[in-house]
């Protein structure tokens, strides 16, 4: 920790922010330095809690987490009661993971992110091993206790008491590896050999493994994240046009011909989701995914402008399947109304803005890309989730960060936020 503090120190550095510079000059000129200095001392005390940690980001995280926990409790109440015989089933688990996650986040925020240079490859290898384990246990050996299947997808790994999605690990691994590679090839990103080939190789491997889990949303997020990081990192835009065209062809091919599981139902499955998206109250509304969308819209619609009130949702009474998971935002909309939903979207936007802001002020390329990757991961998930729940895009299984039930995922999320906070400690962001 002390070592990290030394290398990631920004305190002795002269202020780089032009606004700050102007302000200081003005202070010197006008001689109102005493009052100004006192204000700055207070600001410093508050904003640099924990030695340079970015306070706004930390606050946004904590506020979202707090709202998320409250909403999880509300949304999961009925399901907990009816299926687990205990109304507090989900909230106790999630709350425990949240406390543990906050501790982990603060701890990781003191862990110098530069060490991920060395950890990039091990993380990537572990991630690939985990993905392969899912495929091995889920697809080949079909051991349900280790790799349980959900419909046609097999994306969970249950190792003892620890249940998680290796695709989540893969997303993180991809961000770390790409940040590492982009900072390494910073000057050669414009070339095909360095700027495209290795990235496509890594991205293709991760995407393919996740795709083989039949995990559509995970695949799309990994592809999107990879593309965003490459684009920001300096890969020539023409490659994205080419890659996009290729992917579009693959996607159409998949939707029409492929995506089937062993019993040959996969293709229909994805098309059903699109049909359900286009007409949530139509013929397909009996199928599980469309049913979920329909009930989600009932919930959202019931909320109206101001909502039915916290805890007053009806749709959570077993009508909306698993309201504590991917569709928790529907219950938010029902209970808190459009106003509450917009506030939460605003909070996510602030979080993304602050994450991007911090990343762009990181003092090296690795920090920039790593921070942007982590921020965009959260941002993408939030946007896609909310768009799914509101039927803006077809249903894919994406959870809402800070809200959806899932202890391990929350723990990983908060850990990643810890890395972002660590970047903030050493970035050139105004701390006072």
């Amino acid at each position: 920790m002390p070592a990290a503090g030394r290398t990631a120190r920004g305190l002795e550095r002269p202020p780089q922010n032009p606004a700050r510079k102007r302000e200081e000059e003005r202070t010197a000129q006008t001689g109102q330095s005493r009052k100004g200095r006192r204000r700055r001392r207070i600001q410093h005390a508050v904003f640099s809690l924990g030695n340079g940690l970015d306070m706004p980001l930390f606050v946004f995280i904590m506020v979202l987490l707090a709202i998320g926990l409250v909403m999880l409790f509300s949304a999961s109440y009925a399901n907990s009661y009816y299926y687990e015989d205990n109304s507090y089933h989900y909230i106790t688990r999630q709350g425990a993971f949240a406390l543990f996650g906050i501790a982990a986040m603060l701890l990781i925020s003191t862990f110098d992110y530069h060490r991920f240079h060395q950890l990039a490859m091990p993380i990537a290898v572990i991630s690939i091993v985990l993905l392969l384990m899912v495929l091995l246990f889920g697809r080949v050996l079909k051991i349900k206790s280790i790799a349980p299947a959900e419909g046609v997808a097999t994306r969970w790994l249950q190792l003892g008491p620890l249940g998680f999605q290796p695709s989540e690990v893969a997303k993180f691994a991809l961000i770390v590896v790409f940040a590492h590679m982009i900072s390494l090839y910073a000057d050669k990103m414009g070339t095909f050999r360095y700027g495209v080939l290795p990235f496509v190789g890594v991205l293709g491997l991760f995407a393919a493994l996740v795709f083989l889990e039949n995990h559509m949303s995970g695949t799309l997020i990994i592809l999107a994240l990879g593309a965003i990081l490459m684009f920001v990192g300096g890969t020539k835009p023409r490659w994205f046009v080419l890659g996009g065209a290729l992917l579009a062809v693959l996607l159409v091919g998949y939707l029409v011909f492929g995506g089937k599981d062993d019993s040959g139902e996969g293709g229909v499955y994805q098309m059903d989701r699109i049909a359900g998206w286009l007409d949530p109250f139509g013929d397909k509304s009996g199928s599980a995914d469309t049913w979920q969308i329909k009930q989600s819209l009932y919930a959202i619609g019931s909320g109206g402008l101001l909502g039915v009130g916290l805890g007053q949702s009806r749709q959570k009474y077993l009508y909306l399947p698993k309201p504590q998971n991917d569709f928790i935002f529907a219950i938010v909309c029902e209970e808190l109304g459009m106003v509450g939903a917009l506030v939460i979207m605003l909070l996510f936007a602030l979080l993304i803005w602050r994450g991007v802001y911090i990343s762009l002020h990181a003092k090296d390329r690795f920090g920039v890309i790593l921070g942007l990757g982590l921020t965009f991961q959260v941002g993408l998930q939030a946007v896609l989730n909310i768009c799914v729940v509101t039927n803006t895009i077809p249903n894919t299984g994406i959870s809402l960060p800070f809200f959806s039930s899932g202890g391990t995922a929350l723990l990983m999320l908060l850990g990643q936020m810890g890395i972002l906070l660590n970047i903030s400690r050493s970035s050139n962001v105004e701390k006072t």
Partner: protein
Amino acid sequence: MAKGTTEKIRRKAIALTAALVIGGFGAAAGSLFHWQILRGDEMRAEAMEQSLVTTSLPSMRGTIYDATGTKVLAQSASVWTVVLEPAYIAEDEALRRTVASGLSQILGLDEAELYEMTGEKGSYYNIIQRKVETDVRDRINQFKKEHDITSGIRLIDDYKRYYPYGTVASNILGFTGSENTGLEGLELYYDSELSGSAGRLISAKNALGTDMPFEYEQIVEAEDGHDLVLTIDETVQSILEKYLAIGIEKFQVKNGAVAVMMDVKTGGIVGLATNPNYDPNDPFAILDEKTAKAIEALPQDQQAEAEVAALQNQWRNKGVSDTYYPGSVYKMCVGSMGIEEGVITETSQFTCTGGVKLDGVKDTINCWQTVGHGTTTFREGLCNSCNPWFMHIGSLLGGEAFCRYREAFGMTDKTGIDLPGESYSIYHNFDEMRPVDLAVESFGQNFSITPIQMVTACAAVANGGYLVRPHVVDRIVDSDGNIVKTADTSYRRQVISEETSQLMADIMQQNTYSGTAKGGYVSGYRISGKTGTSEKVAQHAADPTKPMEYIASYCGFAPAEDPQYALLVFFDEPDRENNGGVYGGNAVAGPIFSAIMQEALPYLGIEVKYSEEEYGQLDMVTPSVVGMTIGEAQAKLQEDGLFFDVVGDGDDWDNKVIEQIPESGSQVPKEGFVILYTQGYDIDNALVEVPDFFGLDKVNASYLAAVSKLQVSINGVQDEGALAMLQNIEPGSKVKKGTVITLTFANNETTEAFANIAE
């Protein structure tokens, strides 16, 4: 190491962030606006609808009372539906076993099946038995309590229909189905009035259908159904049914029978008995044993079909749903038309030569008396039931007037009686009516009407010419006792004048007294009657290998001087091969008519007025001698001109009389006897078997009775040639010596049979 940020990276990152946040959240916000604001109400309504569950609260079906307003003919009582909720017990193996064995014992169901049922995890509502009564409900509740079962078995309130008088008036009352909806009869016709409106309990439920913890509950109370008070009098109805059953057995009637009694002034049906009938408490059982046996004898594959046909037949109200040729009974209407239209008078003359030959018709249309009736007045013609006389009236009237009156008498319309399934009549329209049609319709053949139409027309002849509205419900009363609706007793139109009506009543009374309708004579009442023997021509034409079948009917009203009640008795196909050859209206329907009137009129409060002649033959009232010594009793009876006999120890005239037959106050024939019973008499010695008086004349009947130490009271036709047709106590039953058997006599001559015309 590369520099942190470049301007390029900054621009790209900000552009991407803006695209993600503004594009993504903007689109989502747009969706929210669409679903929450624009379509919010719609979504809310849909969500409410799927989460609100309506439970129906049954309403109590109204009671049906007879005309006295005190006798309950149909009533609902609370019962329960036993519902299994397997979802709550499916996981508990031991509980499943307990529930299965407990319920199988209480309800008598198969335990293995019940056990299987308790394992259906996804099932929340499984009706295992309907309409269990209070005792079973108590046992189930006790069982739940004993085993501490809180969920899994539910008892839901319901009602069951009871018909306390069993088969009485079944074809009028109808019955209800499992959902308490009327399926036949009044239960069907007045279903909406009787059923009331079911209440609703609207409550919020989760997707599993169990209660949600938030309170939303709205109760719409069930509204109990209205009660019906009928014009049907249970006593009269029972009299009708009793004699109808006797008639069917006596005359071997093959195709059912009807007896309808109507209040001629209001159109209220006092009794409407039809046979076959059924027990509305168990409507799906075939009541007639002969039919049931015949079905059992059928091959397996035909049984179901035959059973359905038999059930529909026994549910059918023959009085309103079947049509028949009214036959000579219709002459009362045709005679009225002639008098009213002025084409004939009481004394108009016509010569019957035994038949009429019409142009274009091959065969002569015969009178039932083929030698002819000679020259007679109209009065004589009706009393002879002379067919040519009425063809003559028909031709004098002409088709136009005939059809006008026919319509006025209600022969072309439904009567509108408040019972389901009323049939339309079948007749020739004026424009397609040939002379031969007019001729045969003039004596009631070749057009079909329902019995209820005939009795309504008869009421019009009787009551001064007014066509009434037949009905069986007098008033509808709500559950608080307020009258909701009363029957419309106004008449529809006047068909004939009061004078014509009075004249017809007088002529018809003579017909019953000395004409062809003597079978309906009732001592002490002036009955106006008309017989009818209609041929089932169409049926015969369809299968000429079988003998012609007949419908024997008798229609009339009483008392002739102030008509109150009309009665139509109608037997469909008396089996003359097996009943001694009787099939005519006078012989078959007449005695039944007479017996019914004899029993029903005093009950209905019609005063008895004996003529001198009748008074002479009148029975007398038995004095009371119980408690006297034999000697005292003998003296007392002698005073009244009665004889006596003793059962028990009759040697000592000081013995006390402990019992007498006939009992004091009951009727005993003049110069009849009273049997005195003394202390310690032998019951076997006191009982005698009632002989079969059927077909005996008065002398022989009295002799047979005397041999058996019984006495007879004479009813019906008083002529020398009259034969006993009915006895009020079944042959073979045991009665005490001295019992008075009422015999109804009738002429066994068959009149007015109509010879088939080939065209």
